């Protein structure tokens, strides 16, 4: 019975959540704050084991096909634009910036938490530090989209920021996927190899199938069918469906004749899937209220340090850019602090892989949620500074 209730709730949130959240935001006078999606996380928490206990472990097991599919879908969507032919046309400077900002964050968070977990917070294994490092790479375009939605003209800076954000998202998924393969040290080559084999063969299979697919519903069947198939297979083999489908996306982006149609199919479900990912992120919380005290403090510390290290890493990237090219990119670096869907999806994915204990996962969920809440206004502040001249009055 609980499973039906859980499915009802998911359907109701997806159907009516957006207008309700919009109404609430307008009533609270916070419609311009960049926390639109975050509301859905709170709704998820309300129904989680921490709240009304609807999303029990048993229910989560039963809705695993929905979770697996949504993760696979996101991985595919993120990399479907990763066309090497288009990348070649991009200014190499922008690619270098993206790599430096991402690399800086990765190293700062990885090294920083290795030290912290080795000295202060000893309950965490060292591998968690590198998981956090991998998660720090991803950037979210949602804040930028929100900020520039009323802009009629796209300036160079907006284009540059969009591009670096998108590249950050792609890099984030790929680095996360590779790191999850390496977390299982004795079988990293097996995990990586399997992810590549499944991802590449799924991509080639889609390419072959969509050649003969003339109608929209046939395309939909092939694309969704392969996401279900590869996500299920990944789950059985304990590898990340997010990563596997990201590989599929790269293969399709670079070799399919109908790449844009596949991308359109994926884009159709964007609102639904994003809401689902946000809600699931909240719903997966399994902290009992009586244990909250023990979790809250370390989670807050980790979350805040994660934010600072990530910012520091990006500043380090800016510093290197300043040395080599003389360009001041400190505001640009700060604009890249926003993290939402990819981070949430990666955490859901990691929890589904079952590679870490509930002790660690509960703390990570809270810590990274805190970091997202802190990062959003910070990123907005830097973005406004970076795009100051481009913004019109209504921003």
């Amino acid at each position: 019975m609980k499973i039906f209730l859980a499915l009802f709730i998911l359907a109701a949130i997806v159907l009516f959540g957006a207008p309700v959240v919009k109404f609430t935001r307008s009533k609270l006078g916070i419609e311009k704050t960049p926390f639109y999606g975050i509301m859905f996380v709170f709704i998820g928490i309300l129904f989680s084991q921490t709240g009304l206990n609807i999303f029990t472990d048993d229910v989560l097991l039963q809705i695993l096909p929905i979770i697996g599919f949504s993760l696979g879908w996101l991985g595919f969507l993120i990399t479907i634009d990763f066309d090497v032919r288009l990348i070649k046309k991009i200014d190499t400077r922008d690619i270098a910036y993206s790599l430096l900002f991402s690399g800086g964050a990765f190293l700062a968070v990885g090294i920083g938490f290795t030290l912290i977990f080795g000295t202060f917070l000893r309950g965490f294994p060292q591998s968690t530090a590198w998981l956090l490092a991998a998660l720090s790479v991803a950037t979210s375009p949602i804040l930028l989209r929100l900020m520039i939605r009323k802009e009629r003209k796209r300036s160079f800076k907006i284009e540059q920021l969009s591009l670096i954000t998108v590249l950050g998202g792609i890099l984030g998924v790929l680095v996360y996927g590779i790191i999850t393969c390496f977390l299982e040290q004795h079988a990293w080559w097996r995990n990586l190899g399997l992810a590549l084999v499944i991802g590449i063969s799924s991509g080639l299979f889609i390419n072959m199938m969509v050649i003969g697919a003339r109608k929209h519903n046939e395309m939909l069947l092939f694309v969704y069918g392969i996401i279900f198939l590869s996500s299920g297979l990944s789950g059985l083999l304990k590898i990340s469906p997010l990563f596997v489908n990201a590989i599929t996306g790269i293969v399709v982006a670079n070799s399919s004749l109908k790449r844009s149609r596949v991308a359109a199919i994926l884009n159709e479900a964007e609102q639904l899937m994003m809401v689902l990912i946000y809600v699931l992120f909240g719903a997966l919380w399994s902290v009992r209220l009586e244990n909250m005290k023990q979790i809250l403090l370390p989670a807050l510390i980790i979350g805040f340090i994660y934010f600072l290290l990530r910012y520091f890493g990006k500043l380090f990237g800016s510093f290197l850019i300043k040395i080599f090219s003389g360009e001041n990119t400190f505001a640009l670096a700060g604009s890249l602090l926003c993290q939402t869907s990819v981070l949430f999806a990666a955490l859901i994915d990691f929890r589904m892989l079952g590679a870490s204990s509930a002790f660690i996962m509960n703390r990570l969920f809270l810590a990274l949620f805190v970091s997202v809440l802190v990062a959003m206004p910070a990123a907005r502040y830097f973005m406004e500074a970076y795009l100051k001249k481009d913004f019109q009055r209504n921003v």
Partner: protein
Amino acid sequence: MFEFIGFFFISLVGYLTFFSARFSNGSLVTFAVGFLLLDGYLLGRLLFKIKLPKLTGYIVVGILFGPYVFGFLTHQTVEKLRMIDDLALSVIALSAGGELRLNQLKEDSKVLISITVVQTLGMFAIITGLVYALAPAIGFLKEMNAIRILGVAMIFGIVLVTKSPSTTIAMISELKAKGKFTEIVLGITILKDVIVILFFALIFFLSKKIFLTDNLAENNLLLVLFTELFGSFLAGGVIGWLLIVYLKRNIPYVSLFILGVLFFVSKFAPLIHLNILLIFIMAGFIVENFTPLGTHLLRIVDRSSLIIYVLFFAVAGASLNLIALKETWLLALIIVGIRLFAVWSSTLAGSVLAKAQDSIRKYSWMGFISQAGVGLGLAILVERTFPGWGADFKTTILAIIAINQIVGPVLFKYALIKSGDARAIS
């Protein structure tokens, strides 16, 4: 060629995966959804090339890889996949309602009523009579007295009167059939669905009087069914109005909204004893006939219906009980033969009475052969209510449904092509 390669490739991946997975967990179900979607559709396309319905391909994939033949899917996995059933029925019913046009129904009312009534009563009488006559040869009826045999024969009669509206609608959708023949078959299918529910209640009531001496709440049965019918129509009206409001506003992601409503209602309606098929037929009917938005609605539903059809029929195929077929194949085959005769003769009589056009007289009976969910649901109800012979009854009905569900779509495709209504035949 690519269908064949694809089918082979997915089957191989399925073989390697299903037999390596140690238990049926959520990831296996996720994999099974993808497997059935891809393999079902590819086999459907392969069979289409040899003039068989695609739908048969979806069902055959379910049968082949289900628990009874190659055993890729376990009973447990199939049971989990059956969560799609209600959603699929909702999509199918909404499409059906959207295809019903009031002015057309008025125009054809004589034919519709004549065939529906004559077919329902004729099939019931012929099947009941012949099962009664064959009783000495049917194992579980041998020991019963005449009145009890009549009771069971009547239940056989009413359960075998049912047909699968979902198969009819899916075939019409697959062949993009349009025309008078299609309208009439669809109209009868829906009308019959309503009549069968009422008729079954009556027969069930009588059978309980015959078999069960203890006072069950049967007096409430008619009231409950009355409420179910009218409640469903009322709910359908409300949902139809909701859909109109949403469609008029031209809000983005309308297809997701409709799918969400379908899912929501399909899970909620059975809890308050409402009939999903009737609700969505009514909703589709209202949108089609009281606004100009019907075509828009059908186009939206059609965009995602293929996935739902393939999965629904593949799961239906995997659920077909082949053990039952093996155990009772001779009896099942005889009853299938009787039913075929009953459908043909009663439909012919109804169409002659109404002076229906030639194609209806000749081919419409082929649209009423397939059986699935409704028949199965009634058989399960019978098994639960009559523990003594109910299990044997259900086994026989399952075997009959298995045959009808394979033969039915093939015959209906032939009928749609012969009537000239099928457009997507190549």
